[in-house]
């Protein structure tokens, strides 16, 4: 019975306290909003940059030009067996000529008469699971019998891989730093608001309040403040991002594809929200700890 009364007291206390410390609570919530907005915007940018690079990488293909004497089917089987190879398609020399004619458009006349003595080789087009394995796969194919030449944009691919690696590492590092900064900012804000009430905590202890009785309303208050702060942040981010999606759709920047995967976005927004609530509660319950020892 005593426990229930105490619990009821704590809940009522939390609401009252927020109402009476309205501006302090609002300031803390705003701080949480700002921190999460910065972190969230960065995460969204990084997410899209990652997707863009992935897309560029997925365009990379290895062209394997074959000698006319090559055992086409055996070679195809061998290539498919290589680790990291995803898709292999055979392009006969006739098809290659057609494609070339296509790409020349108006000036296709220069190809007239080549049908009889087609100088283009048969080839395989190989796609890999990711860009990283391209040089290795290309190297392995080059060793195979019947292979004349291997082309995959040597030099260019290696550079792209380097860039992707750096971007990933830098994004992870920056996101970690920003997350830490956000946590620190929120902690400091809430610690400040608890500090302003340390006398109150001391008196409560002198009145014979147990530690959790003093702490629980503060913990709840921190979580409620975190809840509002991160709700605003997530809603704002969500609206702006959605608006961007619509805009990009309209001007049809076809080469930019924004991340629209519900699951990924959901995880990101949910994570931001959880972080705000969790840090809010944690911060106030940690900040109050040292005032409880009287």
């Amino acid at each position, binding site marked *: *019975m005593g426990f229930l009364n105490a619990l009821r007291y704590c809940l009522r206390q939390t609401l009252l*306290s927020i109402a009476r410390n309205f501006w302090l609570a609002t300031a803390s919530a705003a701080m949480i909003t700002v921190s999460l907005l910065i972190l969230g915007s960065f995460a969204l940018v990084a997410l899209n940059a990652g997707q863009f690079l992935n897309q560029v990488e997925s365009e990379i293909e290895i062209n394997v030009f074959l000698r006319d004497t090559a055992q086409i089917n055996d070679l195809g089987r061998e290539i498919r067996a290589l680790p990291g190879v995803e898709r292999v398609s055979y392009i006969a020399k006739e098809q290659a000529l057609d494609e070339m004619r296509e790409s020349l458009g108006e000036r296709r006349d220069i190809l007239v008469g080549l049908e009889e003595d087609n100088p283009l080789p048969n080839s395989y087009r190989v796609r890999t699971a990711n860009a990283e394995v391209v040089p290795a796969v290309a190297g392995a194919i080059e060793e195979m019998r019947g292979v004349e030449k291997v082309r995959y944009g040597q030099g260019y691919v290696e550079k792209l891989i380097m860039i992707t690696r750096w971007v990933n590492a830098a994004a992870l590092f920056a996101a970690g730093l920003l997350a830490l900064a956000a946590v620190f900012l929120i902690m400091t804000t809430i610690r400040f608001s608890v500090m302003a009430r340390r006398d109150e905590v001391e008196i409560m202890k002198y*009145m014979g309040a147990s530690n959790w009785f003093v702490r629980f309303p503060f913990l709840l208050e921190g979580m409620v403040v975190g809840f509002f702060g991160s709700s605003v942040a997530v809603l704002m981010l969500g609206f702006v991002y959605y608006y961007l999606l619509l805009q990009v759709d309209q001007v049809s920047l076809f080469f930019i594809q924004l991340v629209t995967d519900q699951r990924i976005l959901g995880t990101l927004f949910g994570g931001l929200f959880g972080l705000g609530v969790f840090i809010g509660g944690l911060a106030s319950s940690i900040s109050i700890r040292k005032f409880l020892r009287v």
Partner: protein
Amino acid sequence: MIQFYNVTKLYPNGVKAINDISLRIKQGDFAFLVGPSGAGKSTIAKLVFREEKPTAGQIFFNGRNALRFRGREVVAMRRRIGMIFQDFRLLPRKTAFENVAFALEVTGVSGWEIRKRVPEVLKQVGLEKKVDCFPEQLSGGEQQRVCVARAIVKNPVLILADEPTGNLDPETSRELMELFVQINQSGTTIVIATHAWDIVNEMKKRVIALENGRIVRDEEQGSYGYGVS
């Protein structure tokens, strides 16, 4: 109820507020602590309430060594003591009602009983009209009476009152003392630190006189006795 054995309190700044005091206050006693400003009256109250710890000596509360109390036992002890602080220490963000109610809430008393008991006590100290005021909206004397109400509402076994009449007019002071006597008759031990010599002389209760941190006099039915008739 309370025993001090050779208690000395040296504050960190080197002030010896209490110097080798031994003292015994029995259950049901009514005692005044008197002495000039700085004599150590508040320090004695703080030592009992465990707001301060002595530098040397032993303190017993209800026959148990209070210096060995751990967190939970300190909390339990404070719930049984009604402390009236010289500087009030009301919760600034709570109304008079809520400040008094808080003393009951910490012990998990039901809301129904709180709503019944708190107005009763506030009426006893003459604050029935100020129930919903915040401390900053109250005069010094009114704040002091909220503090008194907060101490007596929980039916403590011991009331430690540090200058409970410091901000009150003579009439209200006497009424408050009457209230203390009444509470004392139901068995509650009462210790009052005060400068109100006239009241002390009138009431003929036990008087413990301090000077420079030492007990210079301890009489049943004593008087204030500092150059006043």
